């Protein structure tokens, strides 16, 4: 990687830094931040200059940094001639716009956000044209879409709908681009842009080729506002003028043009590509020009004009001949110059005269001669009049269109349509100039704006005028860009004067017809106003609300009051999935499953009876008791299966669950409501049960002891000193899982704390317990025993059934009992201290291991007087605290509400 390659990354990084700096600068400099940013843009351009000169010599500067291994994607930046041209636009026009902002934006306001977004957009656009990897290209493409959305939003509340429209339309194109990039990566076997562009044969032979081309075109058309997506661009004009000039005239809408130019190396000359681009492009060009001619708002005219000019560019790229591509590239450059100038001038007029409507403006030429001159220069360039750069590019476009040969006569048709669009362009150019500057002077108090306000526009306007006669200065850049778009091309040299060529005749025809059209403007106006207006935005809104409506219909069952209505569908889906799984694993045959013990059948019969009773009862009290019974039977099952720890824990959990349910149910109706649609629920539940049983049969009894289980049985005692293998897994081997799980409990406790109100005095438990006289002394009597049992279970956990979970649950029963007895616990026995202490202790034990140089939560021994204290015991204490915290929370919050409701 060369130093020049590093410059590409440095340039992108600098844009990011500039963006982040801009809010800070704004706090000190206010609106003048723009001048600093303009200098910043120029510095970035200077950083890129050496790479650009390499690119213009026919080389390409590359920066590459491995990103992901599989799929192999790298962060590759690549600067060739085509990228250089677009970098010049992004940074050059960007610097002008930044220098324009300070006088345009209101004094004293806060503009950090606008500057941040504009600079971020500049960086994203730079990344887009420098991207050397397909996916990177997509990422930057999306960034420009998002930046555009927020920048349109600078227009205030009325910008909401247009911003959303622009986002949805260009976002849809972004999705198309993503799919296109993925397919292209598959077809070409690489995501490296340079490799892909060299693989023309492979891509064109691939069956994916038509799909890729279609998606690329879709992406480009949405971004570059081609029919039928053109409506978002005029809507986006609610944004402030710098945004319109930078994004929606000079750069972002050119991203689609860049994409089409870039992938011309693959698709140029393919019949479908040619016809699609030429047809849509020329239609858009004429439609946009007609729309521009009927507007009264200067900015709206320019917006439609941009749509029209983009159409010409798309069509010229479609023609695909070297001449046409060269013309498209030159016109991209010319358009950026004259359109940015015009937008800036219109912003100036808007600020000075307070209006952009040509029916209200008049005679500004007398009081703003400099502004008028600049507008005239840019307008002449747009209309394609000698000696502007727009004249050269327009002539080249005519030449390119005349050379179209996709079908016999295509050249004539294309040239005729291009001339039509250009005649209309001339006419609306005159309309803009005449509307604003000619006529009697109405606003005498106005004056020429400060030179600082119009200087940026002056730079662009003069450049457009000078570069016409001096167009050969651009030759190295333009020729290299053409070569990058079409590697096999023999690029032409641009000439200011072609002699008495057919194109000159077409130019003359354009100007003459334009003048005729302008002189008959009143009649043309009346005629145009009678034409129906295609309202793409309204059509889009209708489709959009129809889609939202369809979503509402699909989602309606979920907004039901009844949980059953929406739980039924996932339940049914589980049944189907289970069926598929069982058949895929085992075929339809029934396996014997794991061997059973005779005692199991007895337990199973008890379980079936308890479950049957539980689902049938409508008495809340019976339901709580039966749920507890089911839990006890399952605990017995676990005990028989050789899991005493699990059985003990479940037993304690069942006690607390029953207690919690009793708290809740004592206020809820004690009879459950009469069920409806019981048969359907029973059928679904039965099917789920059957599938679950079959699935269990299919999945169990297949193998010996798992290797992991064998390892734990073998390694538990030598490695941890513990004999209770399950406990050593929880606190020694897989402590992180346990920490996560205890954190879930803490989260549930915090949820309850937020959900339910506590006691007004902040104590746990209620003083008005009804059975306090009986339970109070009992609690006093039993408390030491329960506390001792809890401590005993905790301490022996490493060797025998017990441990932090069960010990904390035992302690929790004491707290619950205390509540029922109406006894208030000590202050520290409240949820927050317990949960916090548990979380902090657990994390501290884990981090202490890291301090000692081991991975998180590695067990270690803490030296204390009289032996060593092993860290898993401390960790288990953390678990103990969090579990106890949850139980105390339950008692506090669920119990508290109950006391209030008595």
């Amino acid at each position, binding site marked *: 990687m060369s130093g020049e390659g590093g410059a590409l990354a440095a340039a992108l990084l600098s844009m990011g830094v500039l963006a982040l700096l801009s809010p800070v600068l704004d706090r000190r400099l206010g609106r003048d931040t723009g001048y600093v940013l303009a200098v910043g843009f120029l510095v970035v351009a200077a950083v890129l200059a050496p790479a650009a000169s390499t690119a213009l010599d026919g080389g390409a500067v590359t920066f590459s940094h491995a990103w992901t291994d599989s799929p192999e994607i790298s962060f590759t930046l690549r600067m060739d001639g085509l990228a250089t041209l677009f970098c010049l636009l992004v940074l050059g026009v960007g610097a002008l716009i930044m220098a324009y902002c300070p006088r345009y934006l209101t004094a004293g306001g806060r503009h950090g956000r606008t500057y941040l977004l504009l600079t971020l957009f500049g960086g994203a656009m730079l990344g887009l044209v420098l991207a050397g990897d397909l996916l990177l290209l997509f990422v930057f493409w999306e960034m420009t879409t998002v930046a555009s959305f927020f920048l349109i939003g600078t227009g205030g509340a009325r910008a909401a709908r247009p911003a959303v429209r622009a986002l949805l339309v260009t976002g849809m194109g972004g999705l198309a681009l993503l799919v296109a990039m993925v397919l292209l990566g598959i077809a070409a076997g690489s995501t490296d842009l340079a490799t892909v562009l060299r693989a023309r044969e492979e891509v064109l032979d691939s069956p994916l080729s038509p799909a890729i081309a279609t998606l690329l075109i879709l992406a480009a058309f949405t971004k570059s506002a081609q029919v039928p997506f053109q409506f978002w661009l005029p809507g986006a004009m609610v944004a402030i003028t710098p945004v319109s000039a930078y994004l929606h005239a000079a750069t972002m809408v050119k991203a689609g043009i860049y994409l089409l130019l870039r992938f011309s190396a693959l698709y140029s000359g393919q019949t479908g590509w040619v016809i699609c681009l030429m047809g849509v492009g020329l239609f858009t060009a004429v439609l946009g020009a007609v729309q521009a001619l009927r507007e009264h708002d200067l900015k709206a005219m320019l917006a439609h004009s941009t749509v029209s000019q983009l159409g010409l560019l798309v069509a010229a790229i479609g023609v695909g001949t070297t001449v046409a591509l060269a013309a498209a590239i030159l016109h991209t450059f010319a358009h950026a110059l004259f359109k940015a100038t015009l937008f800036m001038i219109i912003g100036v007029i808007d600020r000075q005269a307070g209006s952009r409507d040509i029916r209200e403006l008049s005679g500004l030429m007398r009081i703003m001669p400099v502004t008028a001159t600049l507008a005239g220069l840019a307008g002449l360039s747009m209309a394609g009049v000698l000696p502007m750069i727009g004249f050269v590019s327009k002539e080249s476009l005519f030449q390119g269109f005349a050379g179209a040969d996709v079908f016999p006569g295509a050249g004539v048709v294309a040239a005729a349509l291009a001339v039509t669009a250009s005649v209309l362009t001339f006419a609306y150019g005159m309309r803009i100039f005449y509307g604003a500057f000619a006529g009697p002077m109405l606003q005498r108090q106005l004056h020429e704006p400060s030179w600082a306000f119009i200087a940026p526009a002056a730079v662009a306007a003069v450049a457009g005028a000078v570069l016409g006669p001096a167009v050969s200065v651009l030759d190295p850049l333009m020729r290299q860009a053409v070569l990058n778009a079409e590697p096999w091309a023999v690029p032409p040299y641009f000439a200011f004067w072609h002699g008495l060529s057919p194109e000159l005749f077409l130019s003359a025809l354009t100007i003459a017809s334009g003048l005729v059209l302008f002189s008959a403007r009143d009649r043309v106006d009346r005629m145009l106003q009678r034409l129906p207006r295609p309202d793409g935005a309204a059509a889009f809104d209708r489709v959009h609300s129809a889609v939202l409506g369809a979503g509402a219909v699909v989602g309606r069952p979920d907004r039901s009051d009844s949980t059953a209505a929406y739980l039924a569908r996932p339940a049914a889906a589980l049944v189907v999935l289970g069926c598929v799984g069982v058949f895929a694993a085992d075929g339809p045959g029934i396996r014997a499953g794991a061997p059973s013990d005779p005692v199991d059948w007895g337990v199973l019969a008890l379980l079936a009876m308890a479950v049957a009773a539980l689902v049938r009862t409508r008495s*809340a009290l019976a339901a709580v008791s039966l749920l507890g019974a089911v839990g006890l039977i399952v605990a017995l099952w676990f005990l028989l299966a050789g899991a005493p720890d699990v059985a003990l824990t479940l037993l304690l959990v069942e006690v607390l669950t029953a207690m919690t349910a009793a708290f809740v149910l004592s206020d809820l109706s004690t009879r459950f409501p009469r069920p409806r649609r019981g048969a359907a629920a029973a059928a679904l539940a039965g099917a789920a049960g059957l599938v679950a049983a079959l699935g269990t049969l299919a999945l169990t009894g297949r193998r010996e002891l798992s290797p992991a289980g064998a390892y734990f049985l073998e390694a538990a005692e030598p490695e941890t000193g513990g004999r209770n293998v399950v406990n050593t897994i929880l606190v020694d081997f897989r402590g992180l899982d346990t920490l996560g799980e205890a954190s879930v409990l803490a989260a549930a406790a915090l949820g309850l704390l937020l959900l339910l109100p506590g006691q007004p005095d902040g104590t746990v438990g209620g003083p008005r317990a009804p059975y306090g006289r009986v339970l109070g002394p009992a609690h006093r009597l039993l408390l030491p025993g329960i506390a001792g049992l809890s401590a005993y279970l905790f301490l022996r956990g490493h060797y025998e059934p017990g441990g932090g979970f069960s010990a904390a649950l035992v302690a929790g029963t004491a707290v619950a009992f205390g509540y029922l007895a109406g006894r208030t616990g000590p202050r520290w026995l409240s949820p927050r201290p317990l949960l916090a202490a548990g979380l902090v202790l657990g994390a501290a034990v884990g981090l202490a291991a890291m301090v000692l140089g081991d991975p998180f939560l590695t067990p270690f021994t803490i030296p204390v007087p009289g032996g060593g204290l092993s860290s898993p015991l401390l960790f288990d204490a953390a678990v103990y605290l969090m579990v106890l915290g949850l139980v105390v929370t339950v008692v506090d919050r669920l119990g508290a509400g109950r006391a209030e409701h008595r």
Partner: protein
Amino acid sequence: MTAAIAVGVLTAGGFFLLLRPGLVRVTFGFVLLGHAANVLLLAAGGPERREPPLIGDGDPAGMADPLPQAFVLTAIVITFGITVYLLGLARAEHLAGSGSRSGTGPEGPAESAEPPR
């Protein structure tokens, strides 16, 4: 075989309660589904080995697989956390004044301001 039937019974009961109106019974159904998943997990360890995995207390060859037991232990405690949270939701809904409605929905107090349908 017994494990499969136990899972089937618990799942069927759990789903039936899930499809009943009332958040409390939905919670009970959730508890039953938790039991079903735990029985399945433990059965996956191989029900023919039934000695508790306590080193020194029995024949190591017959000891149950400790890993599923650790999973189940964790799962039981998490199920407990979720159960009490669901019961807390039922309580919160009741406090917000919609508890008299037969179909106590999943919405929190915020949505319960609508008149009962």
